[in-house]
């Protein structure tokens, strides 16, 4: 009898122990379990339960909306299901908020009105296979990047298209010019000038060139490097960031280059798989580290040279810094195994994610889910090309799975609210 009793106690103890281990494993493995960030428990934007099949998308004039169970229009919009090459928020000639985008199949330029939720073609180009379209801040110039021919995989062409808006109701015309062939990287100015910065290779060296699209004479070389493989960022007027092209488990470096003096300063280095996103005031850098069995992201403070781990797996290219409140980061976050070969396999298109949007307050450390992505095709949204409008109440992004264009309405969140009284650059 006592033996049976002991057996019972032992069985209960084993079950209890197994449960305890499961709970501990869950807490450790749970990707949203952050040691440094206090999450807000509620989802800040709720638009009902995920679709049961009845909440299907309705497509009218190139946009879709998603209805929630109460029949209200949800805050996520697919602007176009056609693949796009690049998009940008603008204030159009009617002085309304709009989105301009370039269709990948044709190079045609469209404008989507946030007011009447319709897209209108501004310019027909018939430029097949436009891979990348980069807009200047004003939305008046767009750089179209494509290959000379599909057989000639080597020659990248860059055409700078300058849109000329007539009065309201009249048609848009354009003039343009080609920039040099084979520019490996190009970025547009963060302020309302029509300047671009690009990498131009010559005799084994690479030069960072600033050029005014409206004035070909205004062209200056600001930096030279014997290495060619750099990624560019242009966070503020007098600062360009050069980061070595990243690869899993290989050390990367980031340099700040002053556009006036051309002086370079190392800001981050020896970080494996380094990818970055510099804040608009260049005081903070969101960066990711990707090495054997470790993927982590952190915010680096340029002045204090300290970093704050985020506890979320974030690829900086899936984020945008707030401009109204520069402490806020809006990021598309996925859960993936630590041994995923990032960012290489994502760039190659060998892995794909289903993201949800988070807002992270880098000052208070709080973060919260903005919205779970629900794709109408139920394949999820692999976010890329994120941007914010000037009021910071709309997010624009592309689904890398099919290059469709999406927009998310933002409202004041608990996370954002708490930082409203916090001075910037305290």
């Amino acid at each position: 009898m006592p033996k049976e009793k002991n057996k019972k106690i032992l069985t209960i103890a084993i079950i209890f122990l197994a449960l305890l281990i499961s709970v501990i494993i869950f807490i450790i493995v749970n990707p949203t379990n952050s040691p440094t960030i206090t999450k807000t428990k509620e989802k800040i934007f709720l638009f009902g339960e995920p679709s049961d099949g009845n909440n299907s998308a309705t497509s009218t004039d190139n946009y879709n909306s998603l209805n929630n169970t109460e029949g209200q229009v949800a805050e996520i919009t697919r602007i176009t299901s056609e693949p796009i090459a690049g998009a940008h928020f603008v204030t159009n000639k009617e002085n309304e908020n709009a989105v301009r985008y370039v269709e990948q199949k044709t190079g045609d330029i469209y404008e989507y009105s946030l007011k009447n939720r319709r897209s209108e073609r501004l310019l027909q180009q018939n430029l097949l296979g436009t891979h990348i379209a980069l807009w200047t801040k004003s939305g008046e110039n767009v750089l179209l990047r494509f290959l000379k021919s599909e057989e000639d995989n080597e020659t990248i062409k860059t055409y700078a298209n300058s849109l000329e808006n007539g009065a309201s109701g009249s048609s848009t015309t354009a003039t343009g010019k080609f920039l040099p062939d084979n520019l490996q990287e190009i970025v547009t100015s963060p302020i309302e000038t029509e300047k671009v910065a690009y990498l131009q290779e010559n005799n084994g060296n690479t030069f960072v060139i600033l050029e005014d699209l409206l004035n070909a004479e205004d062209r200056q070389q600001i930096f030279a490097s014997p290495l060619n493989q750099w990624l560019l960022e242009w966070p503020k007027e007098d600062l360009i960031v050069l980061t070595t092209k990243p690869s899993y488990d290989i050390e990367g470096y980031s340099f700040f280059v002053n556009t006036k003096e051309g002086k370079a300063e190392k800001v981050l280095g020896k970080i494996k798989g380094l990818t970055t996103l510099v804040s608009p005031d260049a005081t903070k850098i969101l960066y990711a580290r990707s090495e054997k069995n470790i993927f982590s992201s952190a915010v680096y403070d340029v002045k204090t040279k300290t970093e704050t781990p985020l506890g979320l797996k974030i690829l900086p290219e899936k984020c945008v810094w707030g401009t109204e409140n520069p402490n806020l980061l809006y990021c598309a976050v996925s859960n993936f195994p630590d041994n995923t070969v990032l960012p290489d396999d994502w760039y190659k298109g060998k892995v794909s994610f289903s993201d949800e949007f988070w807002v992270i307050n880098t000052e208070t450390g709080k973060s919260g889910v903005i919205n779970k992505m629900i794709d109408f095709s139920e394949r999820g949204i692999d976010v890329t090309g994120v941007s914010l409008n000037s009021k910071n109440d709309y997010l624009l992004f592309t689904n890398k799975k099919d290059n469709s264009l999406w927009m998310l309405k933002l409202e004041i969140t608990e996370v954002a609210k708490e930082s409203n009284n916090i001075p910037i650059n305290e």
Partner: protein
Amino acid sequence: MYKIISKTILLLGLIFPAVSFAGVVDINLSPEIPEPNQTISAELSGTLVDLDSSDIYWYLDKEIQKHGIGEKSFSFTAGDVDEKKDLEAIVIIPDGRRIDLQRTIEPTNIDLLWEANTYTPPFYRGKALPTYKSSIKVLALPSGKNINTKFIYNWSIDSLNNIAGSSGYNQKTFTTFGSYAGYSRKINVSMTSFDKFIKAKKTIKIESVAPELVFYENNPLMGTIFNNALYGIREIKSNDFSVKAEPYYVSRGELKNVQYKWGVGKDRVESKDNKEKMITFTKPENGSGKVQVQAHFKNTANTYQEARSGVYLSY
């Protein structure tokens, strides 16, 4: 009390200058050329002096750190880039004479950045990785205040000594070649200023990878869709579906030597001179099914640069 004694010793040093024992006792640092924030071991050596019986004081930036009979060694951490630290040892030998020894440590850092001259498709944002015999350029970049200073560089690779022609004044880049896939090259550089006051050295390992073949859809309107690779099973909707092979990490200068062999199902697809990067599969008029498309590429000038891959097209 301890501090008072140590300061008194320093003061006495001013009144009674130390005996010149140049070369008799030395401070040896390990490593001799420290990196920023690296732990340094300092050790006294001298055969003509009985250091084991001597009273030894160690100072760092004029602050006493360690004291005792026979305390011949002392460890400390180097400063950050360009941060000077003055190390001083005072040795009182048994007959009462004093020996002063000083070293200044000012770490200079060199970063070694590198890139391989291998192929990646247009608009690819990742690093081109080295493969067997592919060219690799290494750049030595001093940090801090010396970032623009010109130095004398000495480069060496694996166990070989200085590479003549690549070493010398302002020779801050060095070109080498990739090892076999999975193996590393060890690149060493030492950097010295003209006055020999600034010295730094660094070693990195660069591991080569195997080339990779990745398939993409080529769409007649959109061109190659680099965003999404084709792998596993891919359902096709159009009648014609073009598959393009991208030979990641082949030596860029040898792309013209790359040959492709294609197979669809059990059939080999003949192509002119085996130069076709792309094939088009046409759906049978009736029915549905699944077919495997396979490709193999090889750099005929460097047969170690080859890869193969396959994808199922479902229709």
